[in-house]
């Protein structure tokens, strides 16, 4: 989230897409309700914030929304594109914000183009883009870059009239997204869409603000990154980024999935979103030159780019200690430089090809979590060994029991290492709003369970011993790793938290800010965005100065509660908050200030800006200090599938793409089977006429709740939700057993027949959506009550083995199936 949970109470309009907060985040949903019940909020004359929910199914969130729009899965770019078009055509955007705080005025390079569904530079053979034209025209003298380099200065047109300006290109791009077109793609009736557009259009006024809330309903598509970007573009045009009550707010899945991401759970990043080095990068100069954002305007601070080296060197010093020296480039050569994509699906793709010896699964179950679970099961069967670290047996630790598996033919050796559940350890949770909150251990570890980090520490020490005894190809990175803990076999969460924060090696004192990190090897930071969380004053994540005394703990009344836990970065509660104030430093809406300039300093939230930089100083930095442009980006040159979001159909779709029938799907979406020389297994509408989408329910947390008896009682078995009209056509009655099947696999579950799912009319054609709650498997309390009944309960048996071009996120939320009654 750019903002945080409590901040949602500040919104006038809450636009929810691809999310179901009432079910997935019931506790956070209280802030939606507070906004709704607050008579000072809302568009027009007030009377409570308006909640608008666009979703394929009428969920518990829709039940509490003011307006519900049934939208076809995977078409949110068309929805947001339509809203962008409405805002641009009717001049409802926040003019001063767009001119000064976005890259609307940047002039795009000659050669950039978009025709028939393709951006310039497409290569059909490699299914990839040459992105060199997705950039800016340059002019004048180059700007100084990092030591000894220069950077080109971008050309701008502050009138926004140049046909090659980002603004005009954007306007042209979205002019195709008329209400008619939006309706024919999304299935939302024109009148309903127009009524939402009117409400949203009001939110470009400086005294109004809208928040956009999303979750994996936008992420889990081959167009996931662009789906999210299309919403962010709308927020930039309305001037809602950086403001209390505004922003782009991703609800994160688990209690700590935000912390996971921050600490590099994803293959392409190092802790703190530093890029993973690539082959060919011989030293830090090479690495920083390729990885750090570059400044394209003299008024851009480019804080991230400027400090990139400081952050990286401090990380290397944390990892390799004394072995990281100026002379050896701080051991940059120890860091792996993967030559190929190593994202989630890629791991199992490699295993399928027999290129993977073993896999360690920690806190997740591959069989249930990934797309195309039957193929994942084959991948697991190809391994020599599989280690599962979990609190409970999972569909992976017992994958040989899956339907269709012949255990006698599987050679994979499986090791189950019982691990502590989070209630059995202390540590921190980082919530969706980036608050790192320290928690205590509730009960001691049960049975043989050990902490995950103790297992890893033990494993490391044994590997190190083997290298010591037997040597090996490249032992240095293993031998050099520092584990500066009292007991290196049993590091405490407290020690790790201190290490993540980092210290000044000269004084031994904890660092207080990442702005003080250095590239000369005198500072450490295990994750620079957390620097400041554990200072000489102690563990700030433990702070609990909350609603006991709102007057003292929340003096602005905006809900920042600076003394509650700690929020990255630097305890800032709203990111990009310089954009909450106008050019002179006055809040756009005095009733909802983020930060403001009082003549000598910025007050309010922790400023996302130099604290004493006078906004009226001609040399003042632009507001978005982390981007090279210094502004929010309506046009992005850093993505693989296009600088401006475009609607593409899901890989399996029931209809043509009305915008460009010849290029229906994302041209660079990653088709794993095809890339590996295996046949694609995509269903067509003739055999699989219904759209399916997967989701979780309130009663469930991933898969662990399969082991909680009271929650199993609340949702006792697997089911699918069928539209009443479709069930009628198929002779399926409520509660009947049904078989749902795709080109890849099948489910055999009960049917819940409901009007909450209904037919949609898409370009004149009737389209049904089937809802598939994902939770159950062949393991767990409910499954073990009746193993025959629960054989085919893994929802991901149905989903396709494809990924988004940028993130390689699978397409869980839109694919084709068929359904029939059993017996």
């Amino acid at each position: 989230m750019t903002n945080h949970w409590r901040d949602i109470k500040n919104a006038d309009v809450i636009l929810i897409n691809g999310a179901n907060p009432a079910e997935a985040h019931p506790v956070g949903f209280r802030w939606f309700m507070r906004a709704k019940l607050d008579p000072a909020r809302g568009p027009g004359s007030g009377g409570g914030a308006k909640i608008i929910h666009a979703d394929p199914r009428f969920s518990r969130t829709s039940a509490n929304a003011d307006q519900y729009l049934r939208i076809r899965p995977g078409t949110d770019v068309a929805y947001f594109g339509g809203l962008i078009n409405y805002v641009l055509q009717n001049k409802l955007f926040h003019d001063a914000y767009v001119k000064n705080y976005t890259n609307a005025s940047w002039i795009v390079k000659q050669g950039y183009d978009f025709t028939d569904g393709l951006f310039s530079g497409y290569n059909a053979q490699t299914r990839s883009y040459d992105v060199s034209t997705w950039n800016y025209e340059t002019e004048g003298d180059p700007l100084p870059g990092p030591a000894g380099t220069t950077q080109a200065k971008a050309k701008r047109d502050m009138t926004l009239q140049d046909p090659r300006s980002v603004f005009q290109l954007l306007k042209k791009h979205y002019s195709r997204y008329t209400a008619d077109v939006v309706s024919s793609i999304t299935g939302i009736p024109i009148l309903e869409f127009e009524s939402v557009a009117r409400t949203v259009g009001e939110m470009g006024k400086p005294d109004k603000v809208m928040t956009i809330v999303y979750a994996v309903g936008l992420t889990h598509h081959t167009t996931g990154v662009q789906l999210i970007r299309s919403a962010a573009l709308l927020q930039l045009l309305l001037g809602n980024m950086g403001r209390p009550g505004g922003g782009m707010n991703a609800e994160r899945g688990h209690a700590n999935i935000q912390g996971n991401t921050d600490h590099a759970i994803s293959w392409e990043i190092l802790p703190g979103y530093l890029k993973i080095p690539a082959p060919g990068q011989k030293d830090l100069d090479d690495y920083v030159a390729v990885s750090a954002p570059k400044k394209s305007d003299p008024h851009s601070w480019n804080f991230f780019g400027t400090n990139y080296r400081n952050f990286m060197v401090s990380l290397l010093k944390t990892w390799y200690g004394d072995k990281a020296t100026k002379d050896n480039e701080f051991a940059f050569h120890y860091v792996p430089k993967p030559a190929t994509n190593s994202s989630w699906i890629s791991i199992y793709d490699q295993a399928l090809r027999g290129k993977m010896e073993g896999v360690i699964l920690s806190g997740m179950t591959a069989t249930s979590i990934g797309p195309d679970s039957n193929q994942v099961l084959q991948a697991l069967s190809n391994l020599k060994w599989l280690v599962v670290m979990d609190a409970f047996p999972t569909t992976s630790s017992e994958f040989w029991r899956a339907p269709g598996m012949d255990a006698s033919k599987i050679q994979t050796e499986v090791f189950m290492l019982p691990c502590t559940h989070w209630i059995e350890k202390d540590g921190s949770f980082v919530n969706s709003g980036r608050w790192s909150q320290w928690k205590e251990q509730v009960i001691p570890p049960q049975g043989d369970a050990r902490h995950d980090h103790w297992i890893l520490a033990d494993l490391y020490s044994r590997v190190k011993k083997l290298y010591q005894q037997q040597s090996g190809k490249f032992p240095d990175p293993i031998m050099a790793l520092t584990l500066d803990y009292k007991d290196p076999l049993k590091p405490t969460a407290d020690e790790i938290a201190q290490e993540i924060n980092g210290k000044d090696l000269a004084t031994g004192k904890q660092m207080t800010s990442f702005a003080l990190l250095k590239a000369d090897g005198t500072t450490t930071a295990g994750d620079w965005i957390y620097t400041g969380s554990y200072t000489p004053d102690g563990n700030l994540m433990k702070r609990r100065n909350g609603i006991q005394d709102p007057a003292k703990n929340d003096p602005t009344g905006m809900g920042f509660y600076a003394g509650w836990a700690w929020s990255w970065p630097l305890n800032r509660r709203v990111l990009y908050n310089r954009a909450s104030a106008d050019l002179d430093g006055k809040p756009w809406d005095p009733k909802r200030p983020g930060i403001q300039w009082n003549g000598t300093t910025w007050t309010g939230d922790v400023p996302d800006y130099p604290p004493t930089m006078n906004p009226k100083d001609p040399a003042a930095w632009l507001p978005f200090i982390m981007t090279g442009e210094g502004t929010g980006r309506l046009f992005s040159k850093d993505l693989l599938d296009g600088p401006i979001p475009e609607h593409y159909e899901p890989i399996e779709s029931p209809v043509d793409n009305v915008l460009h029938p010849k290029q229906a799907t994302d041209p660079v979406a990653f088709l794993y089977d095809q890339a590996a020389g295996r046949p694609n297994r995509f269903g067509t509408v003739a055999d699989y006429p219904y759209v399916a989408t997967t989701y979780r329910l309130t009663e469930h947390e991933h898969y662990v709740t399969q082991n909680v008896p009271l929650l199993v009682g609340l949702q006792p078995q697997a089911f699918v939700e069928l539209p009443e009209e479709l069930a009628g056509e198929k002779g399926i009655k409520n509660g009947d057993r049904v078989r749902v099947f795709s080109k890849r696999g099948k489910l055999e579950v009960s049917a819940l027949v409901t009007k909450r799912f209904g037919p949609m009319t898409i370009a004149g054609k009737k389209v049904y959506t089937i809802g598939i709650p994902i939770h159950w498997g062949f393991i767990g309390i409910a499954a073990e009550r009746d193993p025959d009944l629960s054989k085919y309960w893994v929802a991901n048996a149905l989903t396709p083995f494809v990924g988004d071009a940028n993130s390689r996120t699978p397409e869980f939320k839109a694919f084709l199936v068929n359904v029939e009654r059993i017996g």
Partner: protein
Amino acid sequence: MAALQERPVGFFTDTSICIGCKACEVACKEWNQLEGNAPHFTADSFDNTGQLDAQNWRHVQFIEKIPDNKGTIGTPIAGGQAWLMMSDVCKHCQQASCLEVCPTNAIVRTEFDTVFIQQDVCNGCRDCIAACPYGVIGFNEKTGTVHKCTMCYDRLQNGLQPACAKACPTESIKFGYLDDLHAAADTRLATLQKQGFAQAQLYGRDTSAYGGLNAFFLLMDKPETFGLPNAANATLPSRNNVPGYLGGAVTAVLGLLAGVLAFRSSRMSGEQR
């Protein structure tokens, strides 16, 4: 929380902001150590609990009222009316049928004006189960006694609010002194009515249902939708039902007359035969 005063307390369950998360059901079971019944898939929307009974002292009803074949469900059908969720509970009636019929005086009214079953006095006769108009009470085979919501009497005695209210994320279940709750409910109802929700209504706020309910509700539909007796039916025979008695007497007289007439007509037809 400071110690509670010995004043009437209750629940105000505002169904217009219930999100059907069932946290109340789980918190209740956790605090009161209820196992719950054996898991059973009912295919009744998202309700697999079924009813209030000895194992379920909070029960969230899910009532789907989605209009047919609409591509969209716009105002005012969304906004708490198309999929009704209502966390049901013992009403702690002012005129409590269970308390009236209990032969052992196991069911008492507490210092907080709530209705409480004393487990050590209950003899398991189950008269209260038959008497309760809301189907709240259930029999536990293991203990041989009847059970229902205690409004977390043990928590109240220690100055804590009931577990369900504590767990409710949207404050749909509010616990407090009854007069405060009445005021909050009146304000909320007025707001909803101003917003055009004409069918929003309070249930049990006044004395029309069993003399008033300490656990009362804001409903977004008529009481019958939730299986609740409406004002005309929610009366206790022993005290309030003069018209009922009169009606009964009239029926009896009419019945007698009808019998006599029937007997006569049958005798006459016999004579004719």
